[in-house]
């Protein structure tokens, strides 16, 4: 082989190999076993992140000077249902957050009830799974207080958040946004049901009247338009069974990374 034909051979071999790798990766991506194998790493990441992070450790907090002038809204910007529009028209006076599931004391909390509960104000960074970040000041009721007030039963492992925004285009088969946290994240001192953003009632685009803030997780965990909280042992029976709307679409349940 001459030097130049050798080079051509090497270049062709490299191009063929990389094309094969790409085709292979797409095949694996579209198989059922491939993503399941890849998902194995999620367990490892979850375990290691839990091990290195103190369960009470606080996410970094910032100063007023760091607050973004407009807090970027993502996902549903307006649930836009007749029901929701009626709540907007009445200033969410009749909005209730129903606390159900493994509780001895079911609750139906109005926004006024939430405002009367022990609260926390925090200036935190919101990290979207897409890669961007935005800083805002959130005020809300401590989720831990709500859970304690509802008197959870033993065997409670997860807290599921039900929302008013329908993600389905088909009104006959609505698919409401939902999310879930384990008890460590749910009882964390920075985990709140926020009703104020930057000192003002939450705008519709950001989840009015209440949204979840779980500051050690990515943005998709922080359900907006929350109207229900359900304490469960597992979430296999809820919608796709993966613990959240985006989880059912293939996203990781562990959203610490």
């Amino acid at each position, binding site marked *: 082989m001459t030097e130049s034909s050798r080079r051509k051979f090497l270049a062709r071999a490299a191009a063929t190999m990389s094309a094969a790798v790409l085709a292979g*990766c797409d095949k694996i991506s579209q198989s059922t076993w491939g993503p399941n194998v890849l998902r194995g790493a999620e367990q490892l990441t979850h375990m290691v992140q839990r091990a290195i992070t103190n369960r009470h450790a606080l996410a970094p907090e910032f100063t007023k000077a760091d607050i973004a002038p407009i807090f970027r809204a993502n996902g549903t910007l307006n649930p836009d249902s007749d029901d929701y529009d009626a709540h907007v028209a009445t200033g969410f006076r009749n909005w209730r957050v129903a606390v159900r599931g493994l509780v001895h004391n079911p609750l139906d909390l109005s926004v006024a009830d939430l405002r009367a509960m022990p609260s926390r104000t925090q200036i935190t960074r919101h990290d979207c*799974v897409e890669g961007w970040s935005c800083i805002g000041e959130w005020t809300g009721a401590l989720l831990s207080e709500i859970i304690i007030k509802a008197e959870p039963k033993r065997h409670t492992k997860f807290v599921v958040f039900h929302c008013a925004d329908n993600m389905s285009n088909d009104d006959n088969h609505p698919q409401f946004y939902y999310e879930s946290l384990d008890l460590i994240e749910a009882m964390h001192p920075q985990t709140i049901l926020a009703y104020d953003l930057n000192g003002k009632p939450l705008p519709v685009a950001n989840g009015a009247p209440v949204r979840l803030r779980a500051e050690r997780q990515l943005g998709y965990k922080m359900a907006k338009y929350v109207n229900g909280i359900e304490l469960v042992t597992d979430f296999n029976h809820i919608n796709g069974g993966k613990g959240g709307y985006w989880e059912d679409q293939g996203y990781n349940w562990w959203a610490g990374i």
Partner: protein
Amino acid sequence: MASLAPTGSAHKERLLVYRHSVMVRVLHWINALVLLVMLMSGLQIFNAHPALYLGKTADFDHPVLSMSAWREPDGSLKGVTQVGPYQFNTTGMLGVSSFYGQMVVRGFPSWATIPGFKSLALGRLWHFFFAWLFVINGLLFASYAISSGHIRELLPTGHDIRNIGKDFVDHLRLRFPKGKEALHYNVLQKLAYFTVIFILGPLIVLTGLTMSPTVDTAVPQLLWLFGGRQTARTIHFICAFSFVGFFVVHIVMLVLSAPINGLRSMITGRFAIESDDD
């Protein structure tokens, strides 16, 4: 150099010399595959928000780099890449590219991402699975290099530093070490390998971890170290393309010096030299 086996009988003897240990060869090829998947799944993740910023948070109006699509008056799509204040038409490559014959809006083109179709969820699965392989492979190499003394081969000596000018000029003239000299890394190789393995590698891992909100809670010092999450993301991106840059130079050097010989030495471990009778 463990074994010297003469293979020729001419005046100049051709010797096959054992050059790379099995550890180095295996870890090298695993790393090559892992880095390729990391890069391409990383570009898939980047495509979810194809812009980079500096600081704690994203200043959406002032990205340091962004890829976007504009609708031309004739209805066609134009891909625009903005770097600081400069804008470039990158239609076909960045911002807008072809996917199964149709021009679509996407940061990096389909052939550069894993998976080829748009899926942030799958891109993240690939990226975080292979990230563990990258870290484990890197730690195995580091412990091997330190325990076996291989690391000394990667550290420039005083003699190397004094002759760095000559080495530089030789490289520019494409004159590469021959014979026994080719059995040791020259100073530019040492600097490149050392920097990539012991600086770029850890840097890309740490900036990646800085993007994790849980890791930021456990180790907030990372945010201070890199100047905020968005700067860390930008450094992560620059590191990724530094690996691409290293790869290009690595391949060019291989092809210009001794492609078959070099490739074989990284597969079988044996590198051929022609020894003079000195």
